[in-house]
């Protein structure tokens, strides 16, 4: 059974620092956690790992606001890709991670780089998607598009309204 280890890890996974809810945080009802790590584990293998320099949990919301989130996709011990953003959110109920701002992804398995301004990851469906402009660079080839969808292990990627520019003759 897919085990989603969440809050327990928030404080202890990285021996994160003080759970400074009151002294440093003047927002009422907001619990701020430094260096949080959230991951999904299946048969003791992590499919994805979300680390963030800061996670803010609002009392009456099951969403967490993430600062400098980094989402890594794993296959066994291999890291398939890493996607970073300036900020983001995670909703356990919806099973949705959203990365925003300067979203930059590097796919080690595909030797590709992705840039966009917003990227969604559906934890349950293991689907990545955005309707935003995307730019992908791979082996000297630049692809721009408006919208992208991919499955969790990047074995299938769709780029919409794409323009691919092949490198010039050397």
């Amino acid at each position: 059974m897919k085990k989603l280890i969440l809050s327990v890890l928030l404080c202890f996974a990285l021996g994160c620092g003080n759970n400074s809810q009151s002294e440093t945080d003047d927002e009422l009802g907001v619990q701020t956690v430094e260096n949080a790590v959230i991951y999904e584990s299946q048969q003791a293998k992590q499919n994805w790992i979300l680390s963030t320099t800061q996670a803010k949990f609002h009392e009456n919301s099951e969403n967490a606001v993430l600062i400098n989130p980094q989402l890594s996709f794993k296959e066994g011990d291999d890291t398939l890709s890493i996607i970073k953003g300036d900020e983001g959110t995670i909703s356990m109920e919806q099973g949705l991670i959203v990365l925003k701002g300067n979203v930059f992804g590097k796919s080690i398995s595909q030797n590709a780089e992705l840039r966009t301004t917003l990227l969604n990851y559906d934890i349950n469906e293991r689907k990545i998607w955005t309707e935003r402009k995307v730019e992908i660079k791979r082996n000297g080839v630049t692809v721009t598009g408006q919208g992208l969808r991919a499955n969790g292990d990047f074995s299938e990627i769709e780029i919409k309204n794409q323009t691919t520019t092949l490198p010039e003759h050397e």
Partner: protein
Amino acid sequence: QEIPAELLGGMLKSDSWVIKRDLQQEIFTGNVRFDSGMYKLNADKVISNRKNNTVSIIGNAYLFNRLKTGETIELFSDKILFNTKNRKGSASKVQNPVNIIYQMPEEYKLDILSNYAHIDGIKSTINLKEDVKIKYTTPASFILGYADSAFIDRANRNAVFEGSVEFDNTEYTLYAGKVSYEGSKNEITIERNYPLILAANEDITGALQSDFIKINTLTKKVHARGRVSGWVAPSN
């Protein structure tokens, strides 16, 4: 995967591009356009399958290639299948005939229609099947040709037309079962179905029928054998 030199600098557009890594397949769908100056491609859908080195170009498929000589080759088809390794391909009619156009500006234009074309990109040969129609035009003249099948070897300037073969231009009409052209010898060989040539120009009108006819296109010499018959008369 290495990008072929002739495609470098090109731009490829489509409404959707799906990459299936495990199947080594890439599917471009909707307004697929490619242009690298030397090559152009338009289609509704293109499927690249690296496992078996094939590219399927489906729906309003158009290929354009400009050779270094300045000659251009255009291929219009409903469906094209091309092997990127052995450079062989086939174009087939679904609704519209296959149309291949060779052109050297101010020199000649060879416009070919057929239901099926098999192309060998390395040997520069084409095998045409079913309802073959050709139109060869130069600034000074034209020839219309019809056949059931044809084989064109551009590299060696050879061509063979078979089946119900007919050739027409302003002066001649030819009916035969097989017509072969050997560019290196400047010879046309006409045989099968008791070939018949009808001629009409300002000087003469006439006809020649014979089992076997050979014409030298340079010397204009005609050699006929087997049941040779015919007539010639001044035009006026």
